[in-house]
């Protein structure tokens, strides 16, 4: 987490597809995708806070699938050196799951009334913005409701949001408690999620 709010948070990409619950953004730089569980802010339009639930690399042209290059003895770097056009024809995208939005400087932890606009820029959230999120655990309900499940991303996000020791453990326990209430109907899922949180 960036500690100083004055540092301009890194911009990752732009929205290329969106719903009120999730959006897909393409990275400006394929190699600079946000990690799973990272907290994001969608600028341009109603400011939205989200977490990274998936990162994918795919061919830019949907009609052209990626094929295999090189033999079993060729390591990755060798294949990329021999085929410089491949990285150029790929794009990296990431999926963001909406955790809330700002309205008049208040962070609301429920879905906005409109999806993030396509082409809106997406950047990393600052420490102050993250702090606003963890004031309450309401946003977990939004994250848990996404299909397919983004549980690993949720656990990663919570571990990122956790303050440094000695408050880290109490924070994770509180998060775990909030999850227990939300996932009471699905004990195996809850158990798996709590184990990831503990890790």
């Amino acid at each position: 987490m960036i500690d100083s709010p004055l540092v301009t948070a890194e911009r990752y990409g732009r929205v290329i597809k969106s719903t009120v619950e999730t959006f897909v953004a393409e990275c400006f730089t394929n190699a600079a995708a946000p990690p799973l569980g990272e907290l994001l802010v969608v600028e341009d339009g109603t400011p939205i806070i989200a977490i990274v639930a998936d990162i994918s690399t795919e061919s830019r042209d949907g009609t052209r699938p990626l094929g295999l290059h090189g033999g079993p003895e060729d390591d990755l770097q060798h294949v990329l050196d021999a085929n410089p056009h491949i990285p150029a024809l790929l794009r990296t995208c990431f999926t963001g799951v909406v955790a809330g939005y700002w309205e008049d400087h208040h962070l609301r932890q429920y879905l906005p009334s409109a999806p993030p606009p396509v082409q809106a820029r997406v950047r990393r959230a600052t420490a102050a913005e993250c702090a606003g999120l963890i004031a309450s655990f309401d946003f977990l309900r939004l994250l848990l409701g996404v299909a397919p499940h983004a549980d690993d991303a949720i656990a990663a996000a919570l571990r990122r949001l956790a303050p440094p020791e000695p408050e880290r453990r109490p924070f994770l326990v509180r998060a775990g408690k909030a999850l227990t209430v939300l996932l009471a109907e699905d004990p195996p899922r809850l158990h798996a999620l709590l184990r990831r949180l503990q890790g």
Partner: protein
Amino acid sequence: MTYENTNGNAPLRDGTDGRMTAERTVSLWSAHEGHEHDSIGLVVSGSLTEGLEIRLDDRVLPSDVIVGTYVTIDAGTRRFFGMIKDIKLCTTIAQLAHTPPGPDEDFLREVYQGTAVFGMLQVQPMLQINDVDGEGRAPEPVKSVPPHFSRVRLSTQEEIERIFGTEDGRHFVIGTPLDMEVKVRLDYKRFIERSNGVFGKSGTGKTFLTRLLLLNTIQKSNSQKEQKDKAVCLVFDMHNEYGWKGTSEDEHREVPGLKRILGSDVAVYTLDSESSKLRNSYPDGEIVIGLDQIEPDDMKLLQETMGLSDNAVDACEALYEKFQEEWFRNALELQITEKGEEDPTSRQLNIHAASVRNLKRALQKFKRGKDFIVDKAPEDVLASLLKTLENGRSVVIEFGRYGSDLDAYMLVANILTRRIHDRWREKTEKALGTGGEHPIHLIIVIEEAHKFLDPAVAGHTIFGQIAREMRKYNVTLLVIDQRPSAIDPEVMSQFGTRITCLLDNERDIEAVLSGVSGKSGLRDVLARLDSKQQALILGHAVPMPIVVRPETYDQTTYARFRESLRSSQPAKSDPSDDSDLFIN
């Protein structure tokens, strides 16, 4: 551009951190003395009859709560008081019972605590205050329930004290609650105006409690100004516990009896002067019973123990009809011929040979060994005993070696009580009719009461009658018993206040709690009392049931009694001495 949150520092909203939630809810309830900090949970369901279900706050472990303690429930302007009668462990995730967190899963355990697993209390509401700040400040019996999510906390000392009365002429201290140092007081007037019972398994401290009750009653009576508020006790002391001295609870020490502490307020009569002498007890009188004082009703009472057949009992009646007070002697003189024929008297009275034999054998056996039975009583000891009582002195009747003789006990008790019955009724009717003084309030203390109050027998004995009617004649009972289920339920229902130590028999517990509202919770409390030094008090003389640790019977107690004695009466000389009060 970053987005700062104006609510970025708001406390958690979902109550997972109990501390913060409590702070937030201060403004919701009436601002009373910051009690919220002791909050232990919320009312979530329940009913008036079944009790309230309280969801324990997350940070309160079920193991921190004790059954039998009091809780206060704040509900706006109303306040409810209740007793914790059960503690449960609950879980919202059934699977956890099969696959609980492992030994290395501390994190999971911490997370589940208070969310998936939590404690629930069952509380029996007993009293309510309708208007905490205003006019309706006095607690009343509960008639309603607090709404959902009302805050529950442990009752404070001040609250308990306020409920159980302050130090005044009306109340006396009986002990302290389990977890506090406040005084629990009984209402003296309410205590004496109805019959009461002290129950518990043997060895649980009934005698001890009774001593305490009697001491307090007598002392309180002395401090009453009005005659009508005074009371005297007549104790049928089967095991020589109450008079001069008795044994302590652990049966190693001797403890002083009523007379030693209260001096001339108490008179001791004995049936067995030898025994009294041996025990260094100085009786004020000796009881002798003349054969002419025994009546057929006494035989009826003792029919089983004496082994009298029904015909023999009828024979007694017949003999009494003919010979009046001489019936007993005449009964002993009945003869059977060698041929097994009745003598004329028998024939005349239609008493068969077999009945004669049965009767004679029983009567002789009965008379044997009872030195206190003489042919004719020299002077009317019994009358003087009654006079003692009427003059405001309590009486303890020591039975000496006859204590283990149930016949003797029951006979003396029955005879004496019959007299009392007549006397008191007479006096009352006179007072009602032509004016004059009502008789002083008399409390008759009997042990092994189920023998007298057994459903089969209760109809015959005078005790049954007293229990049912004598309140209007100012006579009540204080029964001490370990088998309350054997007491006639109709009699039991007359008992105003019941003080019970540990009972473990289902029927006994059921009997003690019969007719009590909210008894389902009390049953559990009763079954969990310590075997010593704990008693549950419920009924007329207390605003709500409470578990107490009775006052200790020690130097401070005696000093207190003696102090109050001196202050209320002119000094009297008595053979007891301060330093003698503690024999060790």
